[in-house]
């Protein structure tokens, strides 16, 4: 293993994530299988059984226990990994908030899947969005390569002493999780140079005892919560810092909190998260060829929310079409709400057109993205809010 080389492999994003957990020298994996995450933990179990990965695999009885076990691993000063989807993430909900409030630098991969009812194993981002306010840093990826690279970066971000918050790396089910693509799997030595061993601030130690995860009332509670917010905001800077260092070592850069694609001089932009941005690039290219001034904004970090970068890129355009694979029922897509809030205070801000699509695994083909961008091109600043379900 020590002499292995960086190799290009034709693998799914799920296998890429499993490779990342191996390369991150994770000490303990605690996970419960669920479609479409299963092949991640299957691969990891195989690496451990085959002696390719030196880690303990705790077979837990639930996702709630999986995350709790990971918190214990962190208390002991070791590195943990877990992964889940949909109902599993929902079941983890209580401990997600625990882990963030307790400042546990965990890394979790969520393979985004719709939430019941109606029952569906297919993809959308409702599961991750519903965990938005648990305090996790949430990063959405587009490809298997980005998923692998972001898991490695996630450990650096989470374990940074200026952050110490858990990180959720999101990938889209099936489009990423079960589709093979070429992925550069880095070698262990290079990963080691980027990601050193975990340096915990506090561990369970009889010689230097701490009460970890204590209660607090009133002003103590409030102070810790305020510190948590400061750390979550700080994470924005650290994501950039770690991304730049990753690029220097591995040669791949994803643009930070958001990625702008052909936004120069754009009159309208499509804003989206996750794997759909791959299709959107093609649509933008095609429309640019037709002489239409459109661009794509890929939101990578959903929490912390990239307010300043978005204000900068969105303020010159006439309108933004925001594609949400989720809905805050009774209002609108969560990304659209945050986009509008980010533009607050701008004089005559761009119109925000919200399209909800790709729910329950529905495809959003290029024609429909084109439709959204055409609608945005036709909209004027100051247009009244627009909400449209596009899957039917």
């Amino acid at each position: 293993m020590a002499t292995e080389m960086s190799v290009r492999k034709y693998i799914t994003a799920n296998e890429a994530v499993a490779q990342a957990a191996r390369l991150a020298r994770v000490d303990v994996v605690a996970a419960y299988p669920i479609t479409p995450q299963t092949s991640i933990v299957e691969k990891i179990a195989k690496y451990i059984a085959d002696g390719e990965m030196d880690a303990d695999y705790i077979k837990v009885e639930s996702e709630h226990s999986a995350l709790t076990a990971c918190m214990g691993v962190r208390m002991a000063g070791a590195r943990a990994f877990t992964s889940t989807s949909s109902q599993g993430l929902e079941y983890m909900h209580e401990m997600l908030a625990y882990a963030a409030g307790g400042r546990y630098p965990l890394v979790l991969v969520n393979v985004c899947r719709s939430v019941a009812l109606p029952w569906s194993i297919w993809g959308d981002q409702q599961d991750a969005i519903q965990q938005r306010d648990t305090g996790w840093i949430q990063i959405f990826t587009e490809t298997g390569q980005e998923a692998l690279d972001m898991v490695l970066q996630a450990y650096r971000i989470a374990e940074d002493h200026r952050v110490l918050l858990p990180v959720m790396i999101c990938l889209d089910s099936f489009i990423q999780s079960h589709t093979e693509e070429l992925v550069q799997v880095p070698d262990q030595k290079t990963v080691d140079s980027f990601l050193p061993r975990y340096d915990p601030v506090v561990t369970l130690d009889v010689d230097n005892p701490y009460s970890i995860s204590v209660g607090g009332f009133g002003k103590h509670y409030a102070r810790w919560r305020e510190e948590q917010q400061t750390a979550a905001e700080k994470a924005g800077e650290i994501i950039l810092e770690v991304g730049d260092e990753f690029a220097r070592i591995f040669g791949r850069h994803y643009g930070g909190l958001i990625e702008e694609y052909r936004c120069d001089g754009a009159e309208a932009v499509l804003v989206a998260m996750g794997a759909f941005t791959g299709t959107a690039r093609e649509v933008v290219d095609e429309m640019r060829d037709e002489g239409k001034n459109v661009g794509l904004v890929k939101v990578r970090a959903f929490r912390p929310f990239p307010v300043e970068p978005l204000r900068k890129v969105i303020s010159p355009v006439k309108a933004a079409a925001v594609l949400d694979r989720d809905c805050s029922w009774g209002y609108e897509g969560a990304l659209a709400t945050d986009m509008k809030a980010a533009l607050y205070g701008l004089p005559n801000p761009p119109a925000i057109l919200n399209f909800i699509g790709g729910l329950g695994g529905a495809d959003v083909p290029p024609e429909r993205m084109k439709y959204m961008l055409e609608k945005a091109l036709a909209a004027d600043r100051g247009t009244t809010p627009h909400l449209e379900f596009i899957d039917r």
Partner: protein
Amino acid sequence: MKKEKSIPGPVQKAGTIPTRMGSWSTAKPVLKGKCTFCLFCWVFCPEGAIVQDEANRKVTFNFEDCKGCGICVRECPTKAIEMVEQQGDK
């Protein structure tokens, strides 16, 4: 209790508590009988509010931490502690 600045999140040096409970109390323990220095009260006190006087070894109470639960009264083998009701501001 002052928290060490460098440790983020709800973590305390062991043996310390983040919130002082003195304001909860409606009655306070008073040592009236014979203290045998057994320190049963110290063991059972949930707030760590019992302190041993270095000079005479008798127990005293830290009323910033004592929430007036009376557990010390029940646990004292010589029944040396009594609860005294408090009225108005302490």
